């Protein structure tokens, strides 16, 4: 984005405060444009009235993200990558999560291939109200045979509607694959110094995004990107090579830093999303598969944090995939969203006077974890969020933000009386705050039961301990 204050964007708006965008003033709308929570399309006069056409075009140019946004695939599951404006997430937020593509090879047995694709497409983990999912399939032309590759691509596309990356350096092989999925906007991997003309032509002919690849040579990478861009290809992804170990890995890390810094600083010829290949961990001669998988996750972590926008990975072991998808979510969570929920009494399901009463802290992650654990197991209850300044249970007990007085205050503020609003006068406290049990009994005049250390164990705990004897 070339501008950074609402005042600069305001100049290009109709300045009528018509309110059609849903904001009371054009200035308010301008600040939404600047923090990227609003789009120019949300302003009907600007879009519809001819007299604003020039301003609209100028404004869109100024608002365009520094790093180009590239879309892979079609429909709901299309993967949007790039689009960033900052080098550090706290400066704004990072947009468009790093996309995790997992490989299949065209020389796999058909049944094994289909099973693996299903595994990729079906993997999911529930996390604070949403599912973490995997993003796509990279088909490797390991056979080098156009017909075999086309058959594998066809099988993958029949099995899933996830976006695809077609991987080969042979234009004939890529073309065979493209023919099969020409309506699905796959990412072409890759144009390099030897095949760039032919692969560039394929990208133009089929109108698909394309990776340019130059191993540890940023001049060559920029040359390829510039050449393809001048030929009218806009959707470019950069592959500076990902070396799995040693000094080569350090060089790779440095390349990622340099490319992104140059892009954010305004070098448009290199301001494209970057592809990382943690996959190469499997080429480093690491004997033990668990260690190889761990190293792949280590590489994925480095490039999730430092500017990888899309990754090709191999290990589908849950112990690899779970931390990888959590780290992507961690880095791409909007830091502008609040840390805490309101300190209040919440109803999970439809609680009655017989239902148990729990409390937890108002740290958003803690609260939502507890809530989803309870809700997904169909337990009706009262759940009090105690205001601990947005700190989790264990740390808040240690730091003095969670005390018996705080718990009592929270009940008072919520207007909830354990003696009247339920018929058991009992509070279940988090296992991690067990040491407060006596104090809370005294300050509330209620029975206090110590719940499990982890809210995931509430269902089992309930079976044994609820209702209280």
């Amino acid at each position, binding site marked *: 984005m070339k501008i950074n204050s609402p005042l600069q964007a305001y100049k290009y708006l109709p300045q009528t405060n018509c309110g059609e965008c849903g904001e009371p003033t054009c200035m308010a709308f301008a600040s939404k444009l600047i923090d990227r929570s609003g789009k120019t399309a949300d302003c009907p006069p600007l879009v519809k009235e001819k007299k604003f056409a020039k301003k609209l075009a100028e404004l869109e140019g100024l608002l365009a993200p520094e790093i180009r946004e590239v879309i892979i695939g079609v429909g709901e599951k299309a993967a949007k990558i790039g689009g960033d404006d900052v080098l*550090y*997430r706290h400066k704004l937020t990072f947009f468009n999560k790093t996309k995790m593509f997992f490989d299949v090879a065209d020389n796999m047995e058909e049944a094994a291939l289909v099973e693996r694709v299903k595994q990729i497409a*079906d*993997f999911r*983990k529930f996390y604070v109200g949403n*599912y973490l999912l995997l993003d796509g399939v990279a088909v490797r032309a390991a056979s080098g045979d156009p017909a075999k590759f086309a058959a594998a691509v066809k099988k993958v596309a029949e099995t899933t509607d996830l976006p695809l990356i077609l991987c080969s*350096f042979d234009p004939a092989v890529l073309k065979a694959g493209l023919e099969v999925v020409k309506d699905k906007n796959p990412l072409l*991997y890759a144009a390099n110094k030897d095949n760039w003309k032919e692969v*560039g*032509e394929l990208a133009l002919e089929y109108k698909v995004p394309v990776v340019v690849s130059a*191993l540890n040579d940023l*001049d060559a*990478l*920029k*040359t*390829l990107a510039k*050449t393809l861009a001048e*030929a*009218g290809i806009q959707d470019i992804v950069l592959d500076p090579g990902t*070396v*799995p*170990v*040693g*000094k*080569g890995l*350090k060089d790779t*890390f*440095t390349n990622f830093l*340099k490319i992104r*810094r*140059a892009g954010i600083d305004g*070098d448009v010829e290199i301001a494209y999303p970057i592809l990382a*290949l943690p996959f190469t961990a*499997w*080429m480093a*001669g690491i004997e033990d598969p668990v260690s190889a998988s*761990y190293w792949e996750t*280590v590489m994925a*972590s*480095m490039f999730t944090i430092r500017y990888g926008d899309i990754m090709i990975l*191999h290990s589908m072991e*849950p*112990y*690899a995939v*779970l*931390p990888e998808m*959590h780290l992507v*979510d*961690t880095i791409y*969570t909007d*830091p502008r969203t609040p840390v805490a929920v309101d300190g209040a009494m919440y109803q999970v399901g439809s609680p009655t006077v017989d239902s148990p009463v729990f409390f937890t802290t108002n740290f958003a992650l803690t609260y939502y*974890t507890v809530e989803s*654990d309870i809700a*997904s197991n169909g337990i009706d209850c009262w759940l009090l969020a105690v205001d601990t300044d947005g700190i*989790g249970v264990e*740390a808040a007990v240690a*730091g*003095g933000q969670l005390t018996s007085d705080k718990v009592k205050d929270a009940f008072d503020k919520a207007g909830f009386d354990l003696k009247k609003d339920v018929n058991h006068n009992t509070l279940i406290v988090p296992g991690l705050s067990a040491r407060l049990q006596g104090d809370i009994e005294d300050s509330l005049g209620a029975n206090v039961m110590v719940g499990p250390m982890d809210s995931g*164990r509430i*269902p089992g705990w309930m079976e044994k301990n609820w209702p209280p004897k």
Partner: protein
Amino acid sequence: MAKKMKLTDITDMFAGMDVEALEGVTIEGDIELDLGGLGGGFDPMLAAALGQESAVLAQHFARIAGMFGYPVGIGAGAPAPAAALAAPKFKDLIPAKFDVANMADWATPIQEVRIGNTSADGGSRGKAVHVGGEKALPFYFDAEMPNRNQVTIDVFDMRIGLAKAVKQNYDEVMDSPGEWAKKNVEQFNADMITIHLISTDPLIKDTPAKEAAKVVEEVLQAVDVPIAIGGSGNPQKDPEVLAKAAEVAEGERCLLASASLNLDYAAIAEAALKYDHDVLSWTQLDMNSQKELNRKLMKQCNVPRERIIMDPTTAALGYGLDYAYTNMERIRLAALLGDDELTFPMSSGTTNAWGARESWMVGSPLKEDSDWGPREYRGPIWEIVTGLSLALAGNDLFMMMHPTSVAFLKKATQTLFGSIDAEPVDISNWIAAEV
């Protein structure tokens, strides 16, 4: 665009084009031809590239060929014209030089802090550990990173509940802090030992400070690496416990963990100065509190800059790591830009990763989840990813537990530090790799 054409129109068209005969073609009277614009595959962008003149010519040929039933355009088996048209787009590479500047405004270096005194400094440690001294974000090319990351492995002064995957490494030494410390150094490559005096908590065993201090002596004798000394986290008792421990460890330059705003930090600072130790300045995910505590340690308690390390709090992957990561990255960037209340090395309680249910629970408590797989492999990688993320944010010292996690974190950070050589790997043909 569609229009009807008479034979005379065609003749007229040919008249301007120097076409004398169409060989092998006969046209019989009263034909009506539909001409739907140009051939389906004709690309106006390509035409533009060829220049107006040749474009017009190409259009004429396309029309003529189309009219007489010749296939025209892409998808109609006419590759020759397509290739001829594309050629000017991809003629030669357009050379470009890549260049990017170093960060000019990272002008303030991070304070270097030594932990441990060797005989040269009047202590008995075999080596000292140095952290800090950076002039850029970790592993960045802007400036050489002077000190690698260090790992201190936990020891507790009593048997405690640990995740199964952790416990199986320590079970036989958990009743002897000295043996535990030795195992950490000799088998698990610990750079340092952290002895946690948790039994001093009035709600656990209420071990008197004097007795707890003996455990510190035991650990100092068992190993010769530098040590960190932790209390129980009880804010009333910790100052007394740490002061006594500092006294028995006089001259060893231990790291006292921790001073915080909710306890008598002045007492801990005083003990550090009196007995020659460093202070860990611990706050909870809040940069401004961190500034406040550092300021108080320096201004009120006169702790010299070279004795302060910060612990801005580690939240585990999936449980607030986004806050912990960004808090550290902000602190480090502010320091490099000149905020001298934050120019200190950082330490992470990376073991907090074992609080994440993914690291220790047998399976997911949520029916909707995919299978989580065997937990013995989940825990170590949870600790690795939590630590590595913070290493990239600027953390220097890691307090860890699982030997596998320690090994991988060290390998990862030292690879980025540049001190690990490896056989070159040819990745150029990764597409055909056998995996």
